[in-house]
């Protein structure tokens, strides 16, 4: 096994509010190997974006890392100061936000924003900056003529591509993406994903891809991690999670999708709604919605159990297997 690029150990993030401390991410551990594509899937409010912010050290009060480590290339990012982090951002790891319209500065041209980023990490000449900006823009399939364009002059898909171009200015080893495709139409979404995968293969960076849409990751990711109520519900290789989902929640998610081919079948979905994290249910957090709920689920906290090459947080697998960590 090669040295992991990123190792997250028991990371917990809480939002410290007046009434309660909401633990949005609860003891999450995972690793990302160089060049790997990890998909993180979950519904809104499951903590997936908070986890990403926790990894990138972008949390602002009241959000705070309350435990665990984020080891990136041997350094614990949780313990790094703002100056050290600033040197790493964009250069070593970058992040692509969900809504490019809000993430790009509406008052500046694309080139000016690229220039800001490039200048923050070294002094390049005007020509070098222009050359590199044009290069990355071409890489994501936008005509460099748009360097002079302002964000509002670009379509939604192009803005999102421009964001990805910006994340690739320094060819970082890790690119984190927070729902980059969810504001896009299906065709634009598919072509963006194909582009991202192509770039990943040619440049070799690792991707953490956060999404609520399982079908998006199914085709591109190496590993998938399903989150529910701040915890990992299931993590496995993409093939095995799609051919043999173990957690009742994962199974529910899969059967909640209608299909465009194959027989039409009744969709069941998952009854109920995700829990309020200020008051999570006792025992397994999925027990109020679980079709396979057992008496012990109401009282006993499930651990992550290893089943084959998968990890699953469900008491159904408690007896047959041993603990993951």
């Amino acid at each position: 096994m090669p040295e992991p690029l990123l190792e997250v150990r028991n990371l917990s993030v809480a939002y410290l509010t007046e009434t309660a401390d909401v633990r949005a991410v609860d003891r999450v551990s995972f690793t990302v190997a160089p060049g790997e594509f990890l998909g993180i899937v979950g519904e809104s409010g499951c903590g997936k974006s908070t986890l990403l912010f926790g990894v990138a050290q972008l949390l602002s009060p009241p959000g705070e890392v309350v435990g665990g480590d984020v080891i990136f290339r041997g350094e614990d990012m949780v313990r790094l100061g703002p100056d050290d982090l600033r040197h790493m951002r964009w250069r070593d790891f970058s992040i692509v936000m969900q809504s490019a319209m809000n993430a790009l500065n509406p008052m500046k041209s694309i080139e000016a924003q690229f220039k800001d980023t490039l200048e923050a990490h070294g002094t390049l000449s005007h020509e070098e900056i222009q050359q590199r900006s044009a290069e990355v823009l071409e890489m994501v399939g936008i005509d460099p003529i748009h360097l002079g364009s302002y964000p509002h002059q670009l379509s939604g898909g192009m803005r999102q591509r421009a964001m990805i171009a910006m994340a690739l200015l320094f060819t970082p080893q890790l690119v984190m993406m927070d729902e980059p495709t969810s504001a896009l139409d299906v065709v634009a979404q598919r072509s963006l994903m194909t582009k991202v995968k192509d770039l990943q293969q040619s440049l070799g960076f690792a991707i953490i891809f956060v999404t609520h849409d399982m079908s998006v990751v199914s085709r591109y990711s190496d590993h998938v991690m399903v989150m529910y109520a701040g915890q990992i519900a299931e993590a496995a290789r993409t093939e095995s999670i799609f051919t043999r989902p173990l957690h009742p929640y994962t199974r529910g998610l899969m059967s909640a999708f209608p299909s465009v081919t194959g027989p039409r079948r009744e969709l069941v979905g998952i009854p109920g709604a995700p829990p309020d994290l200020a008051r999570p249910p006792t025992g397994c957090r999925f027990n109020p919605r679980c079709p396979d709920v057992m008496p012990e689920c109401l009282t006993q906290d499930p651990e992550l159990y290893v089943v084959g090459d998968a990890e699953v947080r469900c008491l159904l697998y408690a007896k047959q297997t041993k603990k993951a960590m």
Partner: protein
Amino acid sequence: MGADGNSDRTVADEPLIRTVDLTRHFGLGGLFAKKQVLHAVDDFNLTIHENEIVALVGESGSGKSTVARMLARVYPPTRGEIYYRGRLLNKLRSRKDLLWYRGEVAMVFQDPFSALNPVFRVSHGVTRNLALHRPDVRRDQRRREAERVFESVGLNAKMLRRFPYEMSGGERQRVGFAQALAVRPKLILADEPVSMLDVSIRAGVLNMMSNLRDQEGVSILYITHDLASARYVADRVLVMYAGHLVEEGPTETILGDPKHPYTQLLLSAVAESRQDAESISGDTGEPPKVINPSEGCRFRWRCPYAIEKCSQVTPRPTPIGSRQVACHVAVAQAEANSAAVPTAPITNT
């Protein structure tokens, strides 16, 4: 569509709602700018029958919401007519007529988080609709009727007392449907009702829509960009591109064997499973903004099969079997094949 434009049909064979060459243009630019006209919808023909869910599919900017807004009379069409049960919509002017129409056709909006007034309990919208549109329900019966409507969309009657912030997205969207249902509509215009909802909740709302059709006899215009959910609930599918209807027909016919290259592109973009990642075309385009368009097919810049005719003549929807397709190439192919054996469907159904 010459034949369809005939307005003096009898009421008996009249569909629930029918549009004839529905067109909506928007003027762009300021006072001194050169006059630019955005063609949001051009010559759009749609029919919805009773007890039918029709999906209107297209990417953002294709004009599908504009169609819904014209049907809901948010704004009038630039050109073309809408017939509701044989009555011309433009002629409805009196308050009584408008109240009648709004009681027959209700709308459900995309965003359940901003469609409900946060300062009122959710019962407010339902009882207000009852007061306005249901004179047969006496004041003291409204409560019970509201409870019945709530239960028909799968909500607990006790939830009527809640405020919107006390409900989840899926519950709020059901409130949106309950408000629409309170007026006993024959047609619900649902503009992307599930796109803002989490996947685990979507299925419930989709199932509720087919229950409404089967049990309350409501027709639904289901506007979506999601072909898979359209296939799941809809009896018929209409595909729009850049303001034009490009393909229309029974759901399985269209999605099982799409004839229009745009429908094929849409379908290949959602085709699930991992196996065919390579089959995706390098297409990076998006629907164009149609400003002062010239004659010709609006898809031709992205179309792999475009021929010269496509840039000269705008294709009109032409019947091929049970469907209509607006594509010169597909129509020519169908004509060539009409003597021969029909081609096998591309995908299994």
